[in-house]
């Protein structure tokens, strides 16, 4: 089979600058196979939303090209729009209308028939647990309810390709799990192609068949979660300290133990990659002890997606909010 025929999304060298000189994309390329879930993962300002806005015809690239469902996103905008569903990073619900009215308008604008709108809306309301509130003005919805309605609206016209910009940001753990189940079902059972952006590593790991880590307007690396982890050979050692250590101490440890690669500290957590955890850990612990640092816990593990992220963006992945560069050498 011709590979390009089985790609639902293809992006080649997308570039985009905003007014004021911000270069948001510096050549983004990736492709997504039909019927799979693909995740763009990256820190704030990496260019994830910009990429999605170009692929959904909301914005146009300065250079490069992209096809969605086999259609050019610049030259065949009208056809692209029929084939895609889009859920933006910000909730985009009409707050003066009820949940049902929001869904119905969406169906109407895609030219769906009245009876079909009714069935489809009921189905989606049920699926996202909104059946009890569909007659309420959405002004009274919680953030989580609005997010679910957002996703339901993106699915109303049964698109072939669905774009989700941070679909679970702001959801409580339980709603997040429920949203994950729905997204997975869309991809695995209903054959939809899903491109989602996220800040959550566990989310990408759980949902996506393939991941691209985006950093500063470029794809830093792309592959299946397992491939990406495998690529980082050896182990990750992680040491929890009782108190943070000084940068000087850290520099000293780094010079004396060259087996430690990508040694970083983030608050009280020290981590490094090594060829063999069993051999490196005792030396590291002894060294820290000699510096007067008290160790609370130490672990050796296979690299996680966390480590992949760290390796490629040079950033410690903190919570969903702040991803900031930290300490020492690589």
């Amino acid at each position, binding site marked *: 089979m011709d590979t390009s025929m089985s790609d639902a999304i293809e992006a080649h060298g997308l570039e985009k600058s905003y*007014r004021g000189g911000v270069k948001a994309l510096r050549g983004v390329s990736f492709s997504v196979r039909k019927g799979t879930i693909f995740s763009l993962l990256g820190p704030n300002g990496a260019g994830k939303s910009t990429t999605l*806005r170009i692929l*959904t*015809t*909301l*914005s*146009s690239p300065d250079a490069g090209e992209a096809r969605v469902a086999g259609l050019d996103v610049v030259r065949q905008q*009208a056809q692209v*729009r*029929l084939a*895609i569903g*889009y859920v*933006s990073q*910000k*909730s*985009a*619900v*009409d*707050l*003066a*209308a009820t949940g049902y*009215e929001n869904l119905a*308008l*969406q169906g*109407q*604008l*895609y*030219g769906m028939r009245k009876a079909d709108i009714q069935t489809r809306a009921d189905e989606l309301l049920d699926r996202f647990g909104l059946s009890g509130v569909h007659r309420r003005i959405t002004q009274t919805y919680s953030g989580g309810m609005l997010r679910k309605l957002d996703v339901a*609206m993106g699915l109303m016209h049964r698109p072939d390709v669905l774009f989700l910009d941070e679909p679970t940001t702001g959801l409580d753990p339980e709603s997040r799990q429920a949203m994950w189940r729905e997204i997975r079902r869309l991809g695995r059972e209903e054959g939809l192609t899903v491109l989602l952006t996220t800040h959550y590593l566990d989310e990408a790991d759980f949902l996506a068949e393939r991941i691209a880590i985006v950093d500063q307007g470029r794809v830093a690396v792309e592959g299946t979660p397992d491939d990406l982890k495998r690529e980082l050979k050896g182990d990750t050692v992680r040491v929890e300290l009782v108190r943070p250590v000084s940068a000087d101490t850290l520099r000293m440890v780094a010079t004396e133990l060259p087996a430690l690669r990508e040694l970083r500290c983030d608050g009280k957590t020290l981590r490094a990659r090594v060829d063999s955890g069993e051999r490196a850990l005792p030396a590291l612990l002894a060294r820290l002890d000699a510096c007067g640092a008290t160790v609370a816990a130490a672990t050796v593990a296979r690299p996680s997606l966390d480590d992949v992220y760290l390796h490629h963006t040079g950033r410690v992945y903190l919570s969903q909010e702040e991803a900031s560069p930290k300490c020492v050498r690589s």
Partner: protein
Amino acid sequence: MRAIVADSLHLVTRRLRPTLRQPVYLGFTLGTPVIWLFLFGQLFKGITALPGFPSGSYLSFLVPGIVIMTAMLNSGWAGTSYVMDMERGVLDRLLVTPTRRVAIVAGDLGNQAVMTVVQSLIIIGLGLLAGARFPGGALATLALLAAAVLIAAAFAALSIAVALLVRKQESIIAIFNFLGLPLSFLSSTLLPTEFMPHWIQDISRWNPISWGVTVGRQMLATHVDWSIAVSHLAYLLILAVVLVALCSLAFRSYQRLA
């Protein structure tokens, strides 16, 4: 084409729905014009005694003016709900659907048209209750409604274009506060043109508000001069078309900067 009409109607419904749910808000938009109607009605009552004033009461004279003024002042706010839609991402959501941009604008203009007709009928009704009389009859009244709708469409389109270009509530509010009163007072809304100083007469002639009022004043005539009514409706139509075209240019610029 059928899709454009159907989409416009769905989008008109979306805009009208909040008003239908809370009709009281329509009352608020009418507060100021009704006060003006009766305040000016009292204030300038004596003016009818002056030589050269067209026959009839000042209240009758004032009603078409207040109808046109209200249409202009209220439709000027159309852009503010656009800014809200932009900030909330609702406009982007509409733009990723297959809906044409012209249908999106038509939805808002349609909403303004319906609101304007209802407000105009209420003002005319209150005028009649207070003793205004319109020998021009039903057809002339329809002409006034048409003029009011065209004024509303023109100013709503202008307001939406400003919204798309500057994307700020404050700018729209500032521009229309700045335009509203001068446009009203430098027109034949309150006084017959002959009663104004020459320089105001010159401005007034080019003021779209005067064009609308001129159409409306035909209601006062026993023999309606249809050539005046139709020609001024045509000017208003041209103005509205030009401003809607401006609106679609503004849309293009909005998307280019996206």
